[in-house]
C-alpha cells in the first residue's frame, strides 16, 4: 500500500491518509476522526487554544518558521473590527509540493485547522488562497468546503456553539509573489499582487485593513492534532526548538522522490539514502537544496552532517525553509540549474523594488552568458556584488532569494563556472 512511496521511518500524522481517496469525502473524513478537535476547541476558551498551540512549539511551515501560537497572540483582543484568517495555499516555491497533497487527500483536515485557528484569533471569515494552477486540488477543496457547510461545520453557529466562521476558497492567477503574505492580501482585495511595506504588520492592519493572520496549509493542518492530543504530545517528535513532524518534499535525483512526513531533526543523509532509496543510477551526490529554491545550496559534504530541523540546517549553512529537498547528483550542471532558478525569480519578481526588478533580470542575463560560453572571470565577482546589493534592500525577501543560490553556488562550485568561462575563452580565441 503505497502513496507513491512511503517509508517505515515516517511518522504519519498529517499525511496518514495520503493515497486514500475515501479520506477526501466528508464521510471518510468523519470516520478518520476529523472535526473532533473542532468540537473540543469550541468548548475551550480562545486563549486556551492559543496556549495549547504555543505549548506545542509549532512553527510556521510556509518557510519562515515563526512560532504559530505566538503569531496568533499578536491578534488584538477587543479591536471591535472584523478579523481575518488567510490560509496560504499558493505553494509556488520550486521544489515544494506538500500543501497540494494535504488539500488533495485530506481537505477536511485543513478545513478543521482553518476553523480552529479562526476561532482562536476571533476571525469570522477565512480565505483559503489557492495557487492558480491547482485545478484539481482547488476543486476538491471547494467540494469539501461545500460539504462541510452542509453538515454545519462551517458557516453560522457552528455545531450550535454560536461561533461563526465562513470559508472562501479563492483561486489565484498564478503568481509566486502572491504567496508572500501581504501580496496575497493585495491579490485577495483585487489589487496588483505585490507585497506591502511593513509596518503595519498584518495583525494590526492586514486584509481589507483589518487584523489578519496568515498561515500556511501545513501549519493549519497540524493544528487539529495539537488541539486533540495536546501541545506536549506534539513535542514527542522533533527537537526542542523544532518540535513535531514535517512534510519533506524530496525531488531530484533520488530513487524514490515524494512527500515524507518525518520528525524534525531527521538526518538529511538518511532521508536521501534510506527513505528515498539513494541517488539514482548509483551516482554520487553533488549538492542538496534543503529548503526550496530560496535557500543556499549545500555541498555533498555539508549535507552529510545536516539535521533537518530549523536550527540544524542553519548550522549546516542553509535554511530549512519549507523543507523542499532538491537532490542533485554528479551529472547536474550547476550553472544551468542556478540560471534556471534566477530566471524563475526574474520572472516572478513583482517588479516594484528596483534591486529585485532590475537585479534578478541582470543576474539571469549574466548567468545565461556564462552558460553560453561568453563569460568572464570578473562576472563572478559582479554576480556576488549584485546579489549582495539585492539583499536586505527590498520590500519582501524574494530579492534576497536570488542571492542564496547564486552566492552559494559560486562559493561552492566555482570550478564549474570557471570551466565554462575557460572553455568559452578557448573557443573565442580559436
Amino acid at each position, binding site marked *: 500500500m503505497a502513496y507513491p512511496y512511503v517509508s517505515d521511518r515516517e511518522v504519519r500524522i498529517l499525511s496518514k491518509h495520503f493515497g486514500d481517496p475515501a479520506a477526501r469525502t466528508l464521510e471518510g473524513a468523519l470516520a478518520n476522526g476529523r472535526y473532533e478537535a473542532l468540537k473540543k476547541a469550541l468548548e475551550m476558551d480562545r486563549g486556551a487554544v492559543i496556549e495549547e498551540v504555543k505549548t506545542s512549539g509549532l512553527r510556521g511551515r510556509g518557510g519562515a518558521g515563526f512560532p504559530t501560537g505566538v503569531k496568533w497572540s499578536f491578534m488584538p483582543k477587543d479591536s471591535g473590527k472584523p478579523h481575518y484568517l488567510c490560509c496560504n495555499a499558493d505553494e509556488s516555491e520550486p521544489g515544494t509540493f506538500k500543501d497540494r497533497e494535504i488539500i488533495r487527500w485530506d481537505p477536511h483536515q485543513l478545513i478543521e485547522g482553518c476553523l480552529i485557528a479562526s476561532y482562536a484569533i476571533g476571525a469570522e471569515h477565512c480565505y483559503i488562497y489557492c495557487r492558480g494552477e491547482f485545478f484539481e486540488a482547488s476543486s476538491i477543496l471547494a467540494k469539501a468546503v461545500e460539504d462541510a457547510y452542509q453538515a454545519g461545520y462551517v458557516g453560522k453557529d457552528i455545531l450550535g456553539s454560536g461561533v461563526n466562521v465562513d470559508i472562501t476558497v479563492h483561486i489565484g492567477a498564478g503568481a509566486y509573489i502572491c504567496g508572500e503574505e501581504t501580496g496575497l492580501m493585495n491579490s485577495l482585495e483585487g489589487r*496588483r499582487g505585490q507585497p506591502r511595506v511593513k509596518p503595519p504588520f498584518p495583525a494590526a492592519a492586514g486584509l481589507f485593513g483589518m487584523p489578519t493572520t496568515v498561515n500556511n496549509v501545513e501549519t493549519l493542518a497540524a493544528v487539529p492534532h495539537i488541539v486533540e492530543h495536546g501541545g506536549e504530545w506534539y513535542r514527542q517528535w522533533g527537537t526542542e526548538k523544532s518540535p513535531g513532524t514535517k512534510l519533506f518534499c524530496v525531488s531530484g535525483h533520488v530513487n524514490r522522490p515524494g512527500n515524507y512526513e518525518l520528525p524534525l531533526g531527521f538526518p538529511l543523509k538518511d532521508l536521501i539514502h534510506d527513505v528515498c532509496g539513494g541517488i539514482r543510477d548509483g551516482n554520487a551526490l553533488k549538492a542538496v537544496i534543503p529548503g526550496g529554491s530560496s535557500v543556499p545550496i549545500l555541498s555533498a559534504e555539508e549535507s552529510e552532517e545536516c539535521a533537518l530541523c530549523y536550527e540544524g540546517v542553519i548550522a549546516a549553512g542553509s535554511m530549512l525553509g519549507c523543507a523542499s529537498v532538491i537532490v542533485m547528483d554528479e551529472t547536474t550542471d550547476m550553472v544551468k540549474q542556478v540560471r534556471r532558478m534566477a530566471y524563475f525569480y526574474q520572472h516572478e*519578481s513583482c*517588479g516594484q523594488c528596483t534591486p529585485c*526588478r532590475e537585479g534578478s*533580470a*541582470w543576474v539571469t542575463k549574466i548567468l545565461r552568458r556564462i552558460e553560453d560560453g561568453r563569460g568572464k572571470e570578473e562576472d563572478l565577482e559582479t554576480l556576488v556584488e549584485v546579489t549582495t*546589493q539585492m539583499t536586505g*534592500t527590498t*520590500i519582501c525577501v524574494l530579492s534576497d532569494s536570488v542571492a542564496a543560490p547564486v552566492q552559494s553556488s559560486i562559493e561552492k562550485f566555482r570550478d564549474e563556472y570557471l570551466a565554462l568561462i575557460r572553455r568559452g575563452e578557448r573557443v573565442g580565441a580559436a
Partner: protein
Amino acid sequence: MVTLTIDGQEVTVPRGTTLLKAAESVGTKVPHYCYHDGLSSPAMCRLCLVEVEGAPKLQPSCVTQAQDGQVVHTGSPNAEAMRRGVLEFYLVNHPLDCPICDQSGECKLQDFVHAEGREHGRSREPKRVFGRDDFGGDVLFYGDRCVMCTRCVRFMNEVEQDPRLTVVERGNRSVIDTFFERGLDGTNWSGNIVDICPVGALVSKDFLYKQRAWDLDHTPSICPSCSQGCNIDLHTRDNLVQRLKPRTNLEVNAHWMCDHGRHNYEFMNRGDRIEAPLVKEGDRHTEVGWKEALSTMLDRAREVGGTVRAVASPFSCNEDLAALKAVVEALGGGEIVYRLARAEEEIPLKGMPTLARRRDLAPNGTGADALGLERVGDDDGTGGLETVSSHDGVVLVLGDALQDQAADFAGGASLFVYLGTHASEAVQGGDFILPVTTFAEQEGTFTNRVGRVQRFWPGLQAPGAARPAWLVLGAVASELTEAEPANTAAEAFSRWVASNEPFAGLDYASLGTRGASMNEPVSAAGD
C-alpha cells in the same frame, strides 16, 4: 515631538515625521524617486535607504518614522554603498539618451548618479527595449527611461482621481500603460505627471525638443488663466515663454496646476505689440516720447475736465488698477468697470478640494472688486460698455483691448486714453494710445479668489517703450495731486494699493514668493 540624531546633528520633529523629512529639516537631502510630497508612499524605489542604529537592515527613510533617541546615518558607508548599488540597477536597462532627452539637465537620474553613483556601470548585457508611446493629452511616454516609481499612476489615482494609467506586467517587464486606447485624452490635470516624473519618461508634446532645460530662466509668477492664482514659474528663453511649471505653494495649488493654465501662455509671446506712445493728430497717430505724451495728455485732461468713465481689465495687477483708480479720483472721480469671461463650470481637482480651474478666467477679478471696480458685461467677457462708449467726458481704458467694440467707441468723449498691449479697431479712436507691459514683463500682485495677494516677477523684457501701467498712471496721478511718484512696484503697492481698506496692513516685501491674505477677503464665496 521626538528628538533624534541625524548625521550627528540633533533634531526635534513632530511625532510621525518621516526620516526623509526630518533629514530635510536639517538640510540633508536623501535621494528618492517614489516618494513625493503630494502622493502616497509606496517605498518601492529603494533609493532613500538610510542606516538607523540598531535596525537590522537599512530603512527606507520615506516611510520610517522618526523615534525618540534614534541615531540615523544618511551617509554611512553602508548606506552609501547600497544607494550606489540601487543607482547602478537603474542604469541596467536605461538608454542614457540624455543628448536627445528633454529631461536632461533637470533629471533626477542624472543628478543622483552624478552625485552618488558608480563611475562606470558594470552591466554589459543587452538592454530591454519598450520604445515610445503616445499616452494622449499632452503626454508622450518613453518607456525605456522609466524608473518605475509609479508617481504618474498614483497622481492619476489619488490626485486627479481619474485612473488612466497602470503598471502592466511584472518584474522587469513592468511598464506604465494606459487602459486600452483611452489614454489621457479628456483629463484636465495630467500635465502634472510630466512634472513629477523624475526622469524623461513622461515628456510634454508641446515642449518636445523645444529647449534644453539648462538654457531656461525660471521666474516666479502667478498663473493668469483663472482666479485660483496657482503659483507658477515662467520658463523663458529668447525673450519668449517656453513653458509654464507649477511652483509649490501648499496653501494655493500644492504642487499642481491645470492643463488649461499650463498651456495658455502663447499670448505672453504675442508679437504685434504697441511699442511707443501714440498721440492722435487729425485722423492719424504719431509716435512721441513718454514725456511728451504724458504732458500733452495732462494738459488735455485739465482742459476738458468732466466726469471720468474707465474700463479696466482683471488681467491687470493690483498696482495697475489702483493707480488707475488714483488717476480717476484725481481727475474728479468717476466709475471704473471691468469685464471678465466666465467658463461654464469649474474643473475641480478631486484630490485637493481647495484647488480647481475656477470659472472666472482671469487672475485679478477679486483685486478689482476690492478696489471698488464694477463688473459689467456678459459671461464671455464682452458687452456692457454702452455707458462708457457713449460718455461725453473723459474715457480711460486700461488693458481691455475692446475686441468686441466698434470703431466709433467713445466717439463722443472729450478725451479717450487707451493703455494696452494690443490695438483693436475700437482703440483706433483713442486720443492717446499708450504701450504698457503684460504681467509677464513687470512686477506686481494679483489677488486670488479668496483674497490672497500674491506677487509675480518679470520674466520677459517689454518691447519698445512699453512700461508698467502703474508707472505710467502713477506718474499721471502724482502730477495731478503733486504727490511723490512711485518708482518701484513696492512703492506703487504701498502708495496706491495698501491705501485701500481691504489691502490695509499688507506689506509688499513680506508677501514674499508665497503671498498673504487680505484682512477681509472679499467675494471669498462662490466661484
